[in-house]
């Protein structure tokens, strides 16, 4: 038996003993396995990208001045199909389990203090350091209105597990209070 060049499908050569049922079965099985493993299964797998969303909807978090304060989320994630968030282990960490390029977005709301001044930044971090450009966003602080910051980026996770967190840093005169915070990651 010989095989095709690209997909390695078997076919009989002139010198082979004629055994049509076995030779057709070998060919049909090879095509069947190839289509299943290399076309159908990856296509189906791609429909379900590893994705997670962790969210803090209740409670608040103190954010001192001049300190990188890692944001915390609720015990249970809003969504997680790849075991990336376990609130019983860490309320701050997204642990990526599958390599790839991820779309990351996060946001945080900071309550007003009655006094204006200073700026606050939301930064995405990885266990390998600050996520590369763009890393986050910043806003000036108003006296009587909350400050809402969001940022979105793409990040390549080459080696797993890799931990992703977000932190807030500000230089307001006095601590700020973070209320709602969320982070979403999905592999593209």
């Amino acid at each position, binding site marked *: 038996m010989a095989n095709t060049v690209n997909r390695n499908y078997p076919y009989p050569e002139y010198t082979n003993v004629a055994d*049509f*049922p*076995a030779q*057709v*079965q070998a*060919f*049909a*099985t090879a*095509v*069947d*396995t190839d*289509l*299943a493993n290399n*076309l*159908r299964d990856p*296509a*189906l797998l*791609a*429909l*379900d*990208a590893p*994705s*997670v*969303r962790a*969210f803090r*909807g209740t409670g608040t978090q103190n954010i001192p001045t001049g300190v990188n304060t890692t944001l915390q989320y609720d015990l249970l994630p*809003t*969504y997680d*199909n790849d075991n990336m968030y376990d609130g019983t282990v860490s309320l701050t960490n997204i642990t990526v389990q599958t390599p790839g390029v991820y*779309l990351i*977005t996060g*946001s945080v*709301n900071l309550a007003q203090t009655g006094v204006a001044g200073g700026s606050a930044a939301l930064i995405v971090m990885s266990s390998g350091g600050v996520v590369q450009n763009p890393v986050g*966003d910043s*806003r*000036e*602080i*108003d006296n*009587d*209105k909350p*400050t*809402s*910051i*969001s940022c*979105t980026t793409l990040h390549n996770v080459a080696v797993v597990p890799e931990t992703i967190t977000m932190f807030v840093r500000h230089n307001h005169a006095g601590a700020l209070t973070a209320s*709602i915070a*969320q982070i*979403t*990651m*999905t*592999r593209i």
Partner: protein
Amino acid sequence: MPGFTPNFTFPYPLPADPADVPTALKDLAESIELNLSQTDDLSKPRGMAQFLGNVPNTLAGTAIAGSLTWQITNFNTVVSQFVPNGAFPAVQPINDASTNAITVNHDGFWFVFGTAQAQSQVVAANIDELGVEILRNGNATPANSRSGTHNTVNASDPTIVVDAAAGIPLTIGETSGLRGLVRRSSGAASVQFLNRSITLLRMTTS
């Protein structure tokens, strides 16, 4: 009776079958062709859609929030007909310029990104914040994602641009949208949200 392969049930003759090479090859070829076409269809792009809004949306008086409307379909992919609820566009097409809720046609975890331009303000307008937030079924509670700027006065630029994004689980028939936010320290100055977009990517099937 022929045998069949395990994944796609391609037929092949068994030794006990009558020797009919043309028919056996025809049956096999037709089965491969059919299944290959169906499998190839799975490789269509994931469900995704983007809509643009260009009709100014005004938040007048003391209104602090208003859902933004969409007029232009930039893209709305039709997913594979061989997945559940397939052969339908990612989201329901929009036919009304006042549409402010985008209805998804498929269950899944959707990544939603929205951005909007707003007018720059004069100091006397007393606008403290311009922002946007992602809506789920018309609601921002519990919050999905919100972003705004306090730097609303900029004489040299015609617009302020704000954006927000979030991943939200949606089932068939549920909606997402984008809401403009205005926070005033006093007064009732109107604010117009101008060009804007909302993009929805279906990242999972459930």
